[in-house]
């Protein structure tokens, strides 16, 4: 019954979820366009949405090439940071001495001023390499993943842990069958955060120089030449990459935790 009714109502609900933000977005763009025209705002302060759009189409191949390399740096750094964060959390949840060694190091890494480090990495790894940029992303992504997953691994219910003990379950089985599933929602909270952070970190890292086919460099140069329509087009593409990564995380969450969505419905 519940399954059937959920399927029936899914389509209208999806429409209801999509329509309001799209309508607000369109209204916002129209107001923006009108405001710039009516109040005669100069293009270097705020270009019209239509001007940004035509700059995007104009510069399409250049922007796309830059976007491709920036996205690849962001995703590579994201994946490495997530893997390291999860690994560190698993390690520290199992061993007290590991926790005492890794936690202060992780806190130290998180406190590092990334803006100061980006140029240093450029010197270490070479300004034209991707490694320096990916490392910046990795460092930014690592901490939220490590902190959230560590917390999640410690959240298993006391009853469930006692139950596993009554079944004489090995520590590995407790980890696999109780602690890791309990930590999954925490991992995905961290991933949502990390997905947005990764693209921001990649662009910030590019501001400190490097190959020219990068969104950060493109935005900076366009702004330097007062081509603000082009700079905004670059920002727009960066947003699209960030949103795409976020959506990928949401889809992965649905796939990995099929019980979570229906639970939310059940309780609402």
């Amino acid at each position, binding site marked *: 019954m519940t399954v059937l009714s959920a399927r029936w109502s899914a389509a209208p609900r999806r429409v209801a979820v999509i329509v309001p933000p799209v309508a607000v977005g369109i209204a916002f763009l129209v107001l923006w366009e009108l405001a710039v025209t009516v109040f005669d705002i100069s293009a270097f302060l705020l270009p019209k949405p239509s001007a940004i759009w035509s700059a995007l189409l104009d510069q399409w191949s250049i922007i796309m090439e830059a976007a491709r390399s920036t996205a690849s740096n962001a995703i590579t750094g994201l994946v490495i940071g997530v893997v390291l964060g999860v690994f560190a959390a698993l390690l520290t949840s199992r061993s007290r001495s590991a926790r005492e060694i890794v936690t202060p190091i992780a806190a130290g890494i998180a406190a590092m001023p990334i803006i100061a480090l980006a140029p240093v990495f450029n010197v270490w790894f070479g300004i034209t390499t991707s490694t320096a940029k990916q490392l910046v992303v990795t460092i930014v992504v690592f901490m939220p993943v490590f902190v959230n997953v560590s917390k999640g691994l410690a959240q298993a219910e006391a009853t469930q842990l006692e139950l596993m003990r009554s079944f004489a379950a090995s520590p590995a089985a407790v980890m696999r069958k*109780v602690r890791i599933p309990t930590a*999954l929602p925490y991992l995905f909270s961290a991933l949502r955060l990390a997905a947005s952070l990764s693209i921001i970190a990649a662009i910030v890292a590019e501001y400190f120089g490097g190959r020219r086919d990068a969104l950060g460099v493109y935005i900076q140069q366009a702004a330097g030449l007062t081509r603000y329509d082009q700079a905004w087009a670059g920002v727009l593409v960066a947003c699209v990459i960030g949103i795409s990564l976020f959506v990928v995380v949401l889809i992965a969450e649905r796939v990995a935790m099929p019980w979570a969505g229906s*639970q939310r419905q059940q309780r609402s």
Partner: protein
Amino acid sequence: MTTSAARPATPAPTAATAVAIAAVDKVFNVGKPNQVEALLGIDLSIATGEFVSLIGPSGCGKSTLLRLVADLTDPTAGSVVVNGKPAAQARRDRDYGMAFQHAGLFDWRTVVRNVELPLELEGWSKARRREQAIKMLELVKLADFAEHRPFELSGGMQQRVAIARALSFEPSLLLMDEPFGALDEMTREHMQTELLRICAQTATTVVFVTHSIPEAVYLSDRVVVMSPRPGRVAEVITVKLGHRDDDIREASVFYDAITAVRDALRGIERGSPRGVDDR
């Protein structure tokens, strides 16, 4: 162990003894300012196939006693023998199943896979454990809900799944810590009748912790009345109801047994203002 000499010797555990508790003390926070003597000088022997309830006011250590049998905590002194072996060995041998007040089902598993969990840990093949889990769900009359998620079930149904899980590997002993404590009265009575049916069908020994006098009387062959601070066995009352069904709840033998348990509880309560749930 210093005081054990003063206590009557418990008979050596035999094949017919499921649980033998001898001269058990349990002290929490030994040597610290917040030291608590939870249990003192507990001697209790439970025969195979028996249904024994532990009842008493809050803080009498009845849950602690159950957890000692389950080897979820260690006694400070004395010995706990389950099926003729130390409690720790019995736990490792998966001699008992356990159910708590909180069903403790895993939301990320379907109902049937929750029941399969202990079998998975024992390394049963996929086909065999599915077959066994379905059999257990039939026993608790929930086979139709095998593919549901736990949160889709009512509290009583969740508790039945927890019982099916505890019995899935067919242990000879079932340890239950207020399993029906969170259920409404009607569901609770229904669950009690179901539990007796399941135990009769599977010939399982049960140790059952409860706050409720009628529940203890309805279910048990013997009711162990415990007193608090430190937790001791105050009295053991044998209940002879004969065949148990819903009619017996209104029979005079039932009320006589309730009165006997209540008197025992009142006896220990003199000097202690705490009440016991009369449900």
